[in-house]
């Protein structure tokens, strides 16, 4: 590494490590390619080749992440940091991207705003996530935040003929912009207080001038906290989440619930665990309060939701609360636990979305929980997938979700925050009351409304069973995604060590103890 700050008078071209930037370059290149190919005439190219390009791009990005594995380098003169944390979280993002691409392949949303735009925007958002996760400078962070947000605003409104989707896009745009503005204001105050934009430089300035109690600095931290809480949908700044999750096209919701979450926690970890860590005692109580409120609001809000997407939205708020428990510890084990949790939780969550999408296409009930009724006899494979994913989200032993919670509990106990872990598990008991009824609905095999209980045939004339043609409407890729993910949930629930090895060095670039 050879960069010099000495010759400050003459602006020198920044030293760029192109290999280190390769995940970003691949994603940006793929986005442009998808956009161009999407303009071509033949429909088969638009509907088949463009998703392939997106898949290949995410695959290549994963490949370049693996090739960079274990490295720790600073890119573009201190703007970005490529370290294990970046790589692990980008793995989650790109993995989520692969799944979301498969889920969106034959989706109505991609059809409506054209495939080229749809997948190109998804790749652009992923590129933004890379910038956000890797950034170690306030300015870069904001660029990443906007690069992530803008494509997602459009994707949420992708079903242009549907009012709910447009509403979701608009709502997300407005709330997201407020969040961005708040973050930006916070950044300005941080810069004003410390005179620095680099994260480690900010930390040094806080220590040097003893800013931990400085009002200007603390207001900056508060603004950043609020803004990022908006972005990561943490309570009490979460109100947009259920509406947006419900209104957005389901593959986009699935992508947001994984990738956006990983990116948001990436930036939260870097900003707070590196830049403003010297003032940890000032901000930790606030974040503990946010964690508690988020867990309560998520778990209570999810109760009694009839829409699966709304339920999963609240559930993802609750899960974000669990992750925050790992974050407020400000410890090496805590960061490892967060990364392990994100990896393990993603599997079950994406599997659930795969089943929801399949049922949206097969039944007239959309994402309502009633669409799952009788799934156990009608589509046993999907039923097993949904069951496993619900058990995993609920954190039942022998699933990936349990191992994720186990890591967070262990990290909390090691940092003397066992009481926080106790609150976590007690609130996750509440979550049984909304995950388990889904499982019961699947397996109880009750007769459907509008069905004659005695004969089991629909009351309406005709009575043609719509099972067979429905099954073919959903698409094999959904079943494939679901089964693979569910198998991974069980496998990693029994042998989680590979994931724990993966995240063992997660906090190496942060200098935590």
């Amino acid at each position, binding site marked *: 590494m050879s960069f010099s700050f000495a010759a400050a008078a003459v602006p020198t071209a920044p030293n760029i490590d192109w290999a280190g930037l390769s995940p970003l370059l691949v994603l940006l290149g793929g986005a442009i390619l998808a956009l161009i190919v999407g303009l071509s005439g033949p429909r088969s190219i638009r509907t088949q080749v463009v998703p392939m390009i997106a898949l290949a791009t995410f695959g290549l990005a994963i490949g370049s992440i693996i090739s960079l594995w274990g490295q720790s380098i600073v890119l573009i003169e201190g703007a970005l940091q490529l370290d294990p944390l970046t790589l692990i979280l980008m793995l989650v993002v790109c993995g989520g991207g692969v799944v979301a691409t498969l889920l969106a392949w034959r989706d109505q949303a991609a059809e409506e705003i054209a495939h080229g735009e749809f997948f190109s925007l998804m790749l652009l958002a992923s590129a933004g996530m890379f910038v956000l996760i890797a950034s170690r400078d306030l300015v870069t962070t904001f660029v990443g935040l906007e690069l992530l947000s803008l494509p997602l605003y459009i994707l949420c409104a992708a079903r242009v003929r549907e009012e709910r989707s447009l509403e979701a896009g608009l709502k997300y745009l407005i709330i997201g912009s407020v969040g961005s503005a708040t973050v930006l204001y916070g950044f300005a105050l941080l810069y004003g207080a410390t005179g620095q934009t680099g994260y480690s430089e900010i930390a040094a300035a806080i220590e040097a001038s003893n800013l931990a109690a400085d009002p200007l600095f603390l207001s900056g931290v508060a603004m950043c906290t609020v803004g990022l809480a908006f972005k990561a949908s943490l309570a009490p700044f979460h109100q947009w989440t259920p509406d947006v999750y419900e209104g957005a096209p389901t593959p986009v919701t699935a992508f947001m619930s994984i990738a956006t979450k990983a990116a948001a926690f990436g930036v939260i970890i870097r900003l707070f665990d590196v830049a403003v860590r010297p003032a940890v005692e000032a901000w930790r109580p606030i974040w503990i309060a946010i964690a508690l409120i988020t867990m309560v609001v998520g778990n209570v809000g999810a109760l009694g939701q009839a829409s699966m997407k709304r339920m999963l939205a609240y559930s993802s708020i609750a899960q974000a609360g669990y992750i925050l428990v790992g974050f407020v510890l400000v410890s090496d084990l805590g960061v490892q636990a967060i990364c392990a949790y994100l990896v393990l939780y993603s599997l079950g969550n994406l599997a659930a979305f795969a089943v929801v999408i399949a049922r949206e296409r097969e039944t007239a009930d959309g994402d309502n929980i009633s669409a799952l009724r009788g799934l156990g006899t009608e589509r046993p494979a999907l039923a097993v997938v949904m069951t496993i994913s619900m058990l995993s989200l609920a954190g039942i032993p022998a699933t990936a979700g349990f191992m994720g919670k186990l*890591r967070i509990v262990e990290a909390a*106990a090691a940092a003397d925050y*066992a009481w926080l*872990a106790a609150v976590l598990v007690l609130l996750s008991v509440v979550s*049984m009351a909304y995950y388990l009824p889904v499982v*019961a609905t699947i397996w*109880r*095999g009750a007769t459907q409304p509008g069905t004659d209980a005695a004969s089991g045939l629909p009351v309406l004339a005709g009575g043609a069973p719509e099972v067979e043609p429905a099954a073919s409407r959903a698409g094999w890729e959904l079943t494939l995604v679901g089964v693979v993910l569910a198998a991974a949930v069980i496998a990693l629930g029994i042998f989680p060590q590979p994931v724990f090895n993966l995240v063992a060095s997660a906090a190496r670039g942060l200098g935590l103890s």
Partner: protein
Amino acid sequence: MTIHLSIILWLPAAAGLLALLLPARLARWISLLGALLVLAYAIALLADYDRAAGGLQYVTDDLWISSLGIHYALGVSGLNLVLLATTAVIFTASAIWTLVDEPDNGKPGVYALLMGLAQTAVLGAFLAQDLVLFVIFFDLMLVPFYFLIVIWGGPDRTSAVLKLFIYTLVGSLLMLVGAITAGVMVANGGEPNFLISELAKTPLGSTAQGWIFLAFALAFLIKMPSFPFHGWMPDGYSNMPIGVLAVFTAILSKVAAYGFLQVALPLFPDAAVRYQELIMIVAVASILYGSAMAFTVDSARLVLGYSSIAQLGFIVLGIFALDGRGADGALLQATNHAIVAGALIFVVAMLARRSGGSEKLSEMGGIAKGAPAFAAVFLVFSFALLAMPGTANFVAEFMILLGTFESKMAFAFIAAIGVALAAFYALRLYISAMHHRVGEKVKSFELTPREALVLVPLLLVVIALALYPQFALGPAQDGTSKALIAAQQVEAAGSETSMATEATP
């Protein structure tokens, strides 16, 4: 290092999986075959366990999750030796019941798989020698039962099973936090190690022990269930299918009792002594409340449910007397009650067949008239339930009361009332079902050969235990003395210091 325990542990799940994959008509046979194989293995263990040497035998110990220091460690000791065999007996009885006595309930393969998983989880909880492994199996026990109840349960199954799940998970997840905290605190910054034998070497600080012990105690008391943590029991019992309920009431409550001896007393002796009286109050309250309710409810199932609360109260009382005889009696009673309660659940189902499908005592009556052999079998089980002298239950309750009398006399006096109450509710169950005026819908008939296939083996076990309780008591004494030693030391040290402080002025 042997593989025997891994075989016995995973055999039921493997049999269940096989039953699912092979044609449905074979499922119940395979399920029974799996249960019989486990039973044979358990009997072989009983015969082969070196009673003279005692201690932990057939140990399997592999590092499972190296980042967290969690081991896949299994072992057989005096505490779990007989309980393993009891588990095998009850699951075999349930498999026989499902094969010969239940009409086709649909999806027999799935049923076999879930029962197999349930047995594996229960055996895992009994065998685990690693604290986190124990907690994981303890939690895992619940999952197959969830599906068994949701798919085959009674009319209120959805809400009943949710209640059951939430109640038990509150306890067992707090227990998980407690277990992890214990391991992390013992490691004190180093690599954690959750082996129970390792954790027992370094006692925790007094404050930490206190709340961790309470988390464990809560989990166990809910699972049993004990008064006042029994809120899930009435709905849960009413909605479980018979084959499932027999296993649930017989075995799952015993895992909790075993947990006190295996985990709570050796690892948290200070707290066990400090909260001894609190737990004993809960136990005595359970005895009185359970007996009183068993004496008043109309549903035959719930008579057994509430009687279980009372019986488990005796077991807890015996354990927390912190006296060798009390704990031995408790462990013996765990086996006795498992066999008798499991058998009586089947009896209730058979009674319902003879009274037009109703399990209400008020709609039964006079069944003995057409079924003398059935009445005789039922009477033996009832006598065992009320701990008639001559049964092993009498031996066990006597030892429990003796142990309690030695350590906390007042509790023994109150608990003795419970013995009398047991006679009330056990005989009430028997008399109002078998004698009294003949119920309106009652059509009595003799014990069928198929029913006999279920009940007679259990009857033989009851008789065998009555004739030779020492068979179960022998290894128990070795196990309980090791489980109690830490708490007894704390108690002795406590009384010395209190005597010293009394002496100083």
